[in-house]
């Protein structure tokens, strides 16, 4: 066993997991608290990437672009809530799915019209574009470490926000009994709009962070939204802690599966079969995990106590 490779792959898995957490946390907030299924969450992830990519060229620096793009994606989220989601809260989940799927198509086409079909490659400042050697042989790109650091910081910030602030208290109360909260004189609509905008900012941030790695491209939200739903189902819908733990587990499973499954398969099948089977099985593993969790704990690993 090559322990250096294992370590590097664990870091890669952690990075993927934290990115997933950024998307899933917004999704679980909106789904858990507003009881709203938002398929367009992935499109906001895409818009975050595109807005940040364009701003990188305008402002000349990726980090400035992120700082400006963050409130912009928040505004996009706010607009979506105001113009569309608000009208759908009272309807059932199927209407949410239909409505937000329509929004996915609209936003994809809008991105196609504004930015063209080619997508954008995002340049990084030189100090972020290099690599660091953590120890002998374990070289990792600086930017991936930055994603890990950002992900952990955001997770800490959200934990604090939800558990120790007045807004967090209202969010939890609103999730538990929204009629009671509004009866106490809290403007529940404004609260929901804030939560929606916060979720959009988190998804946008994930898109911004991935854009220097994969580029901004149309349809990039489609895949991540599926995985993000898997994350919140495993973690327990509405649970921030569950989303965090499930995202990291899925990131690690996916990366380690891609890294070592072929070697494992070669123990009992020939090389060609292993090379074809391994990627197929590793792509399936997170869904297998989800099926197992659903069978054992249908509410997910950490269902919120209030529900």
């Amino acid at each position, binding site marked *: 066993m*090559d322990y*250096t*490779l294992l370590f*590097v*792959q664990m870091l*890669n*898995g952690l*990075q*993927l997991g934290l990115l997933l957490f950024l998307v899933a946390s917004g999704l679980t907030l909106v789904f858990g608290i507003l009881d709203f299924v938002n398929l367009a969450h992935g499109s906001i992830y895409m818009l975050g990437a595109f807005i940040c990519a364009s701003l990188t*060229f305008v402002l000349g620096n990726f980090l400035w672009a992120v700082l400006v793009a963050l409130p912009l994606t928040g505004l996009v989220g706010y607009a979506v809530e105001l113009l569309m989601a608000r009208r759908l809260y009272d309807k059932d989940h199927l209407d949410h799915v239909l409505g937000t799927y329509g929004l996915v198509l609209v936003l*994809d*086409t809008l991105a*196609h019209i504004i930015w*063209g*079909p*080619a*997508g*954008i*490659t*995002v*340049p*990084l400042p030189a100090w972020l*574009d*290099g*690599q660091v050697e953590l120890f002998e042989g374990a*070289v990792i*790109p600086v*930017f*991936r470490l930055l994603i890990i650091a950002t992900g952990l910081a955001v997770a800490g910030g959200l934990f604090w926000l939800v558990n120790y602030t007045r807004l967090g208290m209202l969010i939890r109360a609103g999730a538990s009994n929204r009629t009671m909260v509004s009866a106490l004189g809290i403007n529940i609509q404004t609260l929901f709009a804030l939560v929606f905008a916060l979720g959009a900012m988190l998804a946008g941030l994930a898109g911004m962070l*991935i854009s*220097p*790695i*994969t*580029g901004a*491209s*149309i*349809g*990039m939200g489609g*895949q991540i939204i599926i995985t993000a739903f898997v994350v919140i189902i495993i973690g327990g819908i509405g649970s921030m802690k569950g989303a965090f733990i499930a995202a990291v587990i899925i990131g690690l499973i996916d*990366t380690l599966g*891609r*890294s070592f499954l*072929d070697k494992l398969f070669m123990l009992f099948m020939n090389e060609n079969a292993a*090379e*074809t089977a*391994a*990627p*197929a099985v590793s*792509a399936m593993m997170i869904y297998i995990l989800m099926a197992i969790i659903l069978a054992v704990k249908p509410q997910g690993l950490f269902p919120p106590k209030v529900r």
Partner: protein
Amino acid sequence: MKKLLSAALAATMLTSFVQAAEVKIGFVTTLTTGGAVIGKDQEKAVNLAIEHMGGKMGDLDVNLIFADDGFKPETGKQVTDKLVKQDNVDIVAGYIWSNVLLASRKSVLDAGKFLITTNAGPGPVAGKLCHENFFSASWQNDETPMAMGEVLNQKGVKSIYIIAPNYAAGKGMVAGVKRTFKGAILGTDMTTWPTQLDFSAELAKAKASGAEGLFIFYPGKAGGAFMKQYQQAGLKDSLPLYTTFTVDALSLPKFQAAEFTDVLGSQFTQQWDPTIDNEQNKRFVADFRAKHGSYPSFYAAQAYDSMFLIKSAVEAVGGDLTDMDSMRAAMESASYPSVRGEYTYGNNHMPIQAYYLREVVKDDDGNWTTKIVQTVYEAHQDIYAKDCPLK
């Protein structure tokens, strides 16, 4: 009332008369999703070709119908069925993706129509599934990586690691390079297609393998993502990169905008290059650039060729599209002016053609493009031709 009826009748007859005086071509490509960047380039090239023909093939007007495969085999088959059954086109052309072509070919061929691929070239359609009405305006998947394998041998590379997407074309690419490369293959990773765009795990494995080179195949947006991550991983000196169908005229302007200078000097194999010296290619490249402000990609070049291939067949029969035998004979002779220069067809209707090593350079105006460094094969035929029962 009677007058109205007869007028309607006359109008119908007129329409059917107009229909008879046109050649109806369905073109299946990718116009939405991340794959649209390729499809749009092909669309531009096809429209330019028709414009260069003055809108006519022989005496017939050209009626083009574009269809979007949505980057999915099942959608590709659906739109192909619609073109064949509902629109009743004379010829179906297009197809970027091997899996889409494999899903759609039967619909066209069973209806007794010509099928011209403008990119995809999976092994089966060149071998056991070859068909008298199927023609390729591009290549067979294995050939370009085989040329790259030869280049690796010439450069004295002793061992490589391979990363490619897990679908029909990816497998063909891997098979191709393995066939000609004489050194050791230290590992092969097949990734989920087309969704996986983060290759951190695969790059870490490739680095740990200690190979002397890294061979990849990532068409479209995945190529840009891979190149960027390869550079961020800092592998340029320790693990040189050898690509096929990954760097192209669609990704180079993006790389240039992002000042991603590591791409300059990178080399890959191909059957076409914008610098190939013939009248047809000069006109194609110059007019494409004048119109769209960028160099055409090889996808565009193949799509452009496909229209002239069809034109040669239509002209050979004087517009009588029912004479399919003569149309077929005309296409088999490959006597149209191709932008890649002269080539011939094998028994399986796959081109027997030259393959070049291209290198990314700056042109005189500072635009990033490619030039030919060497000719790898003079006239190469795919290895599946022997499995094809056609004579």
